């Protein structure tokens, strides 16, 4: 019997984390993600896990640090301002190579902003989650089902790379109810015997630290982390809808990907040559996938990047296509949520350019 339920995106995250083997949750209330700590406060103690409502996000992320250091699968969740408060901790977690899962249900910013749907934390998530040169592996679900499955998978990925994994989603997905199948997922457990702090029994003491005053040692540390980010390329995921004849490709992630997909499918029904590309891992960004689409398709001249911010992911798309196609940014700041028809209009504008303006060399 399939275990199909009607749940919100944030509830899917909480249930996905339990499926992924989450043992400890630490968090602080903030809208629009409060259902996650509420569910965890009930479910984790039942399973012998730990739940603590911290006095701040700063404290919560450091509780995650502690639980991760002793080898437990740990998670926190928050929304934009809370995520900013955690960023010092993020940097330490990356430097200490401590795996954990962090959920950001984005809200509109900057500052206190509002609780509108927004994708304004894209840069923060994929470029600089904290000070220094660290990166997260970032997964951006677009449906409740995906939120459930990716959150579960995030625990395995975090352990595999000994690096934090972020689930980046927005208030639309977080607060939208969808039919979700609570599948049994084959989430692997990865041994932490060689590094976790368990008490120095029958071995020398272990030190998990990030202070390297010797410059050669610090450089080596950075290069080691860099190598790890390169290895994460194996985890690149994306969704695409292409037949090789496209003239315009619409690129969007998360909830915006859903709206973009609908407009692309409608246009295709009408015979327009337009394709769809949704990065699911936004770090590592599916650069190779995008550039190989361009290599295979000579008719593809324009990529329309649609986002719920003032234009952030568009920069990663530009780097990926490296001038081989025109990249157009259509951005919607928080609270300006487009309808599929709005995107259709944008695509048509692009197509007019393809036909009537001399092509870029």
């Amino acid at each position, binding site marked *: 019997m399939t275990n199909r339920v009607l749940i919100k995106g944030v509830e899917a995250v909480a249930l996905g984390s339990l499926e992924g083997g989450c*043992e*400890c949750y*630490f968090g602080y209330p903030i809208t629009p993600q409060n259902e996650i700590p509420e569910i965890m406060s009930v479910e984790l103690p039942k399973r012998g896990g*730990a739940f*603590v409502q*911290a*006095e*701040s996000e*700063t*404290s*919560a992320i*450091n*509780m*995650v*640090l*502690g*639980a*991760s*250091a*002793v080898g*437990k699968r*740990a998670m926190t969740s928050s929304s934009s301002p809370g995520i900013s408060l955690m960023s*010092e*901790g993020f940097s*330490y977690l990356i430097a*200490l190579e401590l795996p954990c899962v962090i959920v950001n249900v984005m809200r509109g910013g900057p500052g206190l902003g509002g609780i509108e749907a927004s994708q304004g934390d894209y840069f923060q998530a994929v470029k600089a989650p904290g000070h220094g040169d660290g990166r997260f592996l970032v997964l951006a679900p677009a449906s409740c089902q995906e939120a459930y499955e990716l959150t579960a998978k995030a625990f395995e990925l975090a352990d595999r790379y000994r690096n934090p994994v972020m689930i980046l989603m927005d208030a639309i997905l977080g607060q939208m109810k969808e039919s979700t199948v609570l599948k049994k997922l084959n989430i692997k457990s990865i041994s932490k015997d060689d590094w976790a*702090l*368990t*008490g*120095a*029994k*029958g071995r*020398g*003491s*272990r*030190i*998990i*630290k*990030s*202070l390297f005053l010797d410059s050669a040692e610090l450089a080596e540390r950075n290069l080691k982390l860099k190598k790890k980010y390169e290895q994460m390329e194996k985890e690149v995921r994306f969704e695409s809808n292409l037949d090789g004849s496209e003239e315009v490709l619409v690129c969007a992630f998360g909830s915006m990907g859903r709206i973009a997909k609908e407009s692309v499918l409608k246009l295709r029904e009408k015979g327009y040559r337009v394709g769809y590309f949704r990065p699911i891992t936004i770090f590592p960004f599916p650069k190779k996938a995008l550039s190989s689409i361009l290599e295979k398709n000579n008719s593809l001249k324009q990529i329309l990047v649609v986002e719920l911010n003032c234009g952030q992911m568009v920069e990663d798309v530009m780097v990926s296509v490296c001038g081989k196609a025109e990249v157009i940014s259509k951005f919607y700041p928080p609270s300006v949520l487009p309808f599929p028809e709005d995107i259709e209009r944008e695509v048509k504008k692009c197509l007019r350019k393809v036909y009537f303006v001399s092509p870029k060399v």
Partner: protein
Amino acid sequence: MLKESLFRFPKSLKRNNFHYCPGCHHSLVHRMLCEVIDELNLRERAISIASIGCACFIYNYIDVDMVEAPHGRSCSAGTGIKRARPDLIVFTYQGDGDFAAIGLGDSLHAASRGERITAIMINNTVYGMTGGQASPTTIIGQKTTTTHLGRKPEEQGYPLKVAEILSNFEGVAYAARVAVNNPKRVMETKKALTKAFLAQLEDKGFGYVEVLSACPINWKMDPVSATKYVDKLTKIFPLGVFRETF
């Protein structure tokens, strides 16, 4: 003839030379801590948190599993460890800047929740590692690199008395202030540390030991005068047990 030697090197103390300045009291506290770890047989199940400050290198000296935490966050990291693995024995080793300035929220909330962890605060009234700036425990009139004319209550307020604050916390099972500037006090420090670990071992609550400690370099004193100066500090920060529930 004596059957056993009078001097024993604690098993948990690594045989590394201390990097601390001449006359600094960190090394003394490290040693007493190691003696307590040995006597309570904690080495194989202890986890310590290295804080930010001069003692961030504690992992070079104490031979237990250690993780580093950001400035001020040791009690939160300790909470995470203890909640995840209640069978482990968790202790933090922090300065007054770490515990009582940037980390006061983390420290007080961990104490208030009655986290079963042991927190050791080295109170030397200054930020030692950064070169002797004023800290929350700088005393009235004390000259530091950021209070050139001495701490003035009307400008910088009053020194924070953490042991006294914690004495009112129901989650705290033991809170004491000690010093290590004479042999008797060194032995009292050892007793206090033992009791603060017992608070955790016997599942009673948060254990806290504040150690008044000399910082000759930043106090601009020679080690002997600095050690004597700790007596002056005891007038403002009285020694004693401020809370003991078991």
